[in-house]
């Protein structure tokens, strides 16, 4: 049997069977509980020796029916469910969902609210990318990166806790605003975090960027061409790693991203190493955005005051004023009253473009809510990119794609 394969490693080439030597194929199931599948992904592989001849990802182990649940509750009640999509960046998910519903309601939020959302989304991006790099490091045998990354994530979680009251599932954004204003001195503490984070980030990246073992495991491995990346609907760092400069924060700005100065890093070859480099650079750019947002932090309201039938009034008003009490009661029992229509909104999340497609027939409950999960689309290229690689390279490819199954399975 002769299979046309591009084997990247010299050791593997040496081990190649001579022509005419017919070996039996082996099928191997990797996952759903495997350290390198980052959650509950199963790869049903067919192997010729060490080389993959077929790869069929089996997903759905974490399917909770979020879209069905959304059809049965009010728009506000669904916010906590968005935390559990990409649970490494709940703040960014909350914001994407809130903006999607605001587009339907034709609602503009004040500048302060936009700035809060940008800061939290970028902090979430740093947190998600740190975990992505840490886990990628472990996959390729570099434990230290994980320890460094988690020390920094702990500091971020402290900031999240102070702002939202929760470390992990924040549920911070509201339709038409955010849950509460930033605490006294919080933005200064964010600024201080950024200042001390930059040198540590350089240290973390220095552990990998010129690391011989890491480069052997990633350079030239899992190459995704520009055309394939687009055809398979890849988004986020995985698309940009293949050289497509599409960043929705730049190209379809939302939440005031157009005011900030930042660069969009792109890769050149589209291999695992390029995707790593793009994530590293994105963290530097996120710090840039946060520092600008903190320096020009707007004053004013942190919720849209004209959203009387959508955004619940401040709690102190609810307890002291009749009108606000009724307003609060109506929003809690009937949900925010939104017009009929269809909207689709995608936000540039750490994993890629998180999209919400909402069909409304009016009233407080969506008729249909579709979640376009970037991890789902990013994983769909696996059957193409894994075939012809060694089993050990699959580990490195999975690490470089940086997916979250909570989002993929919804």
């Amino acid at each position, binding site marked *: 049997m002769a299979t046309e394969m591009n084997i990247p490693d010299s050791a593997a080439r040496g081990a190649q069977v001579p022509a005419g030597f017919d070996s039996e194929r082996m099928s191997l199931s990797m996952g759903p509980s495997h350290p390198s599948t980052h959650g509950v992904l199963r790869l049903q592989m067919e192997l010729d020796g060490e080389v993959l001849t077929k790869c069929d990802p089996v*997903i*759905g182990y974490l*399917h909770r*029916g979020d*879209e*069905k*649940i959304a*059809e*049965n*509750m*009010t728009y506000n*009640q669904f916010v906590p469910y968005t935390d559990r999509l990409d649970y490494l960046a709940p703040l960014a998910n909350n914001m994407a969902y809130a903006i999607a519903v605001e*587009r*339907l309601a*034709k609602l503009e939020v004040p500048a302060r609210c936009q700035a809060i959302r940008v800061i939290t989304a970028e902090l979430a991006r740093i947190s998600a990318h740190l975990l992505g790099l840490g886990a990628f490091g472990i996959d390729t045998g570099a434990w230290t990166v994980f320890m460094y990354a988690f020390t920094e994530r702990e500091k971020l979680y402290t900031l999240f806790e102070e702002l939202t009251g929760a470390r992990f599932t924040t549920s911070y954004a509201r339709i038409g605003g955010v849950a509460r204003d930033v605490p006294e001195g919080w933005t200064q503490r964010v600024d201080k975090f950024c200042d001390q984070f930059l040198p540590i980030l350089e240290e973390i990246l220095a552990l990998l960027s010129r690391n011989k073992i890491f480069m052997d495991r990633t350079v030239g491995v899992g190459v995704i061409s520009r055309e*394939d990346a*687009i*055809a*398979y*609907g890849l*988004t986020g760092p995985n698309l940009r790693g293949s050289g*497509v400069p*599409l960043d*929705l924060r730049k*190209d*379809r700005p939302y939440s005031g991203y157009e005011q900030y100065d930042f660069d969009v890093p792109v890769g050149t070859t589209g291999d695992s190493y390029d995707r790593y480099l793009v994530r590293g650079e994105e963290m530097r750019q996120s710090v840039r955005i946060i520092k600008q947002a903190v320096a020009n932090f707007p004053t004013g309201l942190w919720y849209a005051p004209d959203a009387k039938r959508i955004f619940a009034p401040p709690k102190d008003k609810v307890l002291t004023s009749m009108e606000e009490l009724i307003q609060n009661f109506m929003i809690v*029992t*009937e*949900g925010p009253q939104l*017009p009929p*229509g*269809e*909207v*689709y*909104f*995608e936000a540039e999340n750490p994993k890629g*473009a998180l*999209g919400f*497609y909402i*069909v409304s*027939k*009016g*009233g*407080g*409950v*969506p*008729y*249909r809510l*579709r979640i*376009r999960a970037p991890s*789902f*689309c990013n*994983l*769909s*290229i696996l059957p*193409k990119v894994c075939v012809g690689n060694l089993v050990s390279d699959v580990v490195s490819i999975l690490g470089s794609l940086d997916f979250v199954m909570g989002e993929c*399975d*919804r």
Partner: protein
Amino acid sequence: MSAPAAALTALREKFPRVTERASADHPAADVPAEELLAVLRCLRDEHGYDLLADLTAVDWAEGASPRFTVIYHLLSTATPGYLRLATACAGDTEPAAPSVTGLWPAANWHEREAYDMFGIRFTGHPDLRRILMWDGYPHHPLRKEFPLAGVETPLPDPEIVAETGAKAIAAPMAGGPFVASPGEMKMTEAEPRAKDESWNEAKDKPE
């Protein structure tokens, strides 16, 4: 005129059967199923809508005809802007739509999901299997008649079932927040109380 709107105008000149679709944000169009592939190919090759951002379906509930609509969201990587295209599925009980996997490999998993969740058969799909639910699962959960709590279903492995008597049982409906109904409703109906109170953890579901 924005780039997506201009593309849509040009498209409607070329394909007169494409009609404008009401939309709250991006330019949108209804496309007849027979012309879908030609329209999408034209958008991809001539107008630069090279990225299939999303493919999904909507169930307009039992009694509506056409009951199922497939929705495509296209994005251009050159001049970013979205286009929404919708095509009605042929058949209301066994819906079918043409597969676009030939144009975008990205559609492969999206169409499998739409098949899994709605039971829409995509003609020309190379490998139309369930993706989120397990093989052999008998229902299509995002159809409107499917209850939120789920339905009792045998597990796929008969050997394990014979040995343990295990099954996938529906979620209990007692209390819980899953009570809000779409559309106009009375306040009492929206109170946090289960709609179906005929069964709960203590009392079995009536057959």
